[in-house]
């Protein structure tokens, strides 16, 4: 197995400021994305229901798995939007919908003002060039019978306008160099690489067409801790170099905080809370976010006695038959009658509306309340 001796030292010209600083307000200002402008991707009320059918010949729909049920968010140029949630909350389905690998039941995805859920044929192909994906498992997402050169070069077969035929090999070698692999490995097969190197190959393939948006579905969760840091650093460096926008889907909340400018928390097909990383991690207002954050084991044994932990009871309900009203109410300690009747909207809670505090961000809870669970001793 070859060494990645030529992994470049990333020099991130940082916009993010380490927040050992003073007041919360200052932090919030510093951490907000610098230039916002027009969103590059606007997702509005995205819904995906998978039908449940009965019978063999005359299939009759008896229900639906509501995998994604009304999700809205914006993605800006050059920023990273993290999406976190437990398994089965619909985060991977959102990724597939954005790639138009699945057809949305309803809702819109605007890429530069154009609704891509309605596109087909040539127009869709053109949009897809600009939205690429990096998959979770580097062992199954690379074809074992293709060489690295063929894998990374395959996007050029579909979009020949990006690189003329004679140039392709050179272009692939450039890409290998960009992701920190030796360009001489172009004729090797995936099994000759380690997990971290394979994920680099997956990233190189995602970069091949010079996309503007890369959707990363759990890109580092299959990797070892020491290799994970290498890949995360690489992704941050590439973002600065090519001004990429990332949608970073993961279940590891620490990694998401590290890489994201903004974070959305999903629960059972809906967005529970969305805001900047400081707003979500240091000033969460949704009880689910608070429970999720408090459950993350902190690598500090000193904190283990003092830390307050909210341990949720039970499991996530089935998305085929979600609870009425607020979907989190069956596991929520604050649940009241109102929660069963009324679906809470994703908006800045009334208590915080108009106030200059980091707690004033969108949260879908009737009884939103700020609570710092990460720093609480």
């Amino acid at each position: 197995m070859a060494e990645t001796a030529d992994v470049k030292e990333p020099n991130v010209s940082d916009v993010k400021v380490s927040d050992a600083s003073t007041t919360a307000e200052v932090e919030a200002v510093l951490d907000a994305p610098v230039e916002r402008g027009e969103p590059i991707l606007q997702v509005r009320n995205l819904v995906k229901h998978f039908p449940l059918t009965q019978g063999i010949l005359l299939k009759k729909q008896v229900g639906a798995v509501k995998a994604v049920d009304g999700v809205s968010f914006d993605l800006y140029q050059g920023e990273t939007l993290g999406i976190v949630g437990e398994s089965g909350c619909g985060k991977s389905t959102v990724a597939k919908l954005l790639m138009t690998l699945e057809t949305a039941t309803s809702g819109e995805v605007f890429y530069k003002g154009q609704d891509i859920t309605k596109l087909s044929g040539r127009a869709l192909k053109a949009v897809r060039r600009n939205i690429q994906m990096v998959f979770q498992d580097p062992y199954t997402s690379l074809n074992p019978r293709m060489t690295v050169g063929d894998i990374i070069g395959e996007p050029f077969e579909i979009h020949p306008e990006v690189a003329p035929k004679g140039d392709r090999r050179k272009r692939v070698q450039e890409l290998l160099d960009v992701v920190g692999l030796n360009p001489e490995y172009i004729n090797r097969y995936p099994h000759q690489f380690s997990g971290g190197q394979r994920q680099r190959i997956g990233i190189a393939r995602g970069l091949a067409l010079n996309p503007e948006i890369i959707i990363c579905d759990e890109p580092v969760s299959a990797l070892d801790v020491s290799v994970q840091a290498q890949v995360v650093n690489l992704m941050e460096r590439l973002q600065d170099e090519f001004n990429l926008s990332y949608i970073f889907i993961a279940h590891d909340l620490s990694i998401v905080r590290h890489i994201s400018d903004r974070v959305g928390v999903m629960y059972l097909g809906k967005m529970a809370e969305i805001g900047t990383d400081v707003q979500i991690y240091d000033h969460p207002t949704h009880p689910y976010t608070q429970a999720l954050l408090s459950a993350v084991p902190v690598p500090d044994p000193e904190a283990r006695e003092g830390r307050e932990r909210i341990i949720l009871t039970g499991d996530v309900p089935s998305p085929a038959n979600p609870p009425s009203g607020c979907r989190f109410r069956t596991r929520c300690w604050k649940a009241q009658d109102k929660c069963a009747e009324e679906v809470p909207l994703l908006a800045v809670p009334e208590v915080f509306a108009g106030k200059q505090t980091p707690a004033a961000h969108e949260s879908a809870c009737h009884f939103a309340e700020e609570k710092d669970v990460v720093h609480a001793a």
Partner: protein
Amino acid sequence: MTTTTEKTANVPEQSGEKNAPLLEVRDLHVEFHTRDGVAKAVNGVNYSVSAGETLAVLGESGSGKSVTAQAIMGILDMPPGRIPKGEILFRGQDMLKMSADERRKIRGAKIAMIFQDALSSLNPVLSVGYQLGEMFRVHQGMSKKDAKAKAIELMDRVRIPAAKERVNDYPHQFSGGMRQRIMIAMALALEPDLIIADEPTTALDVTVQAQVMDLLAELQREFNMGLILITHDLGVVADVADKIAVMYAGRIVETAPVHELYKRPAHPYTRGLLDSIPRLDQKGQELFAIKGLPPNLLNIPAGCAFSPRCPKVQDICRTEVPALHDVAEQDGTAMPGRRSACHFWKETIHG
């Protein structure tokens, strides 16, 4: 969860020998004979666990942490596996010298194991009640009816709701967290002295992970069991462990009580691991990354196995395998339980 190493001295020992650890692994070697050569998975591992104590074995994939556990349980595939050297003492008796029958009496009844992936560890065509009851039928010769009653009792104990109604359900009808609870129930069935948990929560979501770890810690206290927790998650370790053994390329590179290790690591690998994890409570600029890759076990580097990736490497590291030194304070006071397999442990911990 404040049990410390010292507390175990109060525990009544059945073997009569005072302060003897429950399990002691001495200089264990495991190798696998493959077509490409001999893969040395474990190269001289020493550790011990006492009753009521939690030992966390930390390491990346391929560090030999699971192979060591399999050797203890006696479930190693042999061949291609082979144990050329070493002792595994359970209550003072070497299990590697026992007959298959004797080992079978220990396995399950005295030492039990919890596996990572509950779905593939449970038999999909048998009901969970049947699988739980099997422990009692095989080991204690109970009747089917009694075994099922015991199974329900166990499911109640690991807090599976409506145990009576669910005892005849099949594994696929349970959620991931519930399946892991069934694995725990199965390991607990015969009230073993020692439980080996191999990445018990890796496949679970954080909220469920917290539930399962809590349950495991509570049951451990209740039965005063020894627990070997095998994991790669530094967060989980910090939450439950009493002492830690860090493994790299089949060797233990550092051992320490849990609080010490996080405060002052004495091996560059441990330090690198601690620096490379992102934090939930603060946003750093850039992650520290250990350069390079874990070594190939067919061809472990000469000298210290970590030397090709170590930021502090010197000439001696490439030629001489460092012994597991006792670590002491700067003024020479001994630090109990602390060891480091680095030529430059002094510089790593003190400077």
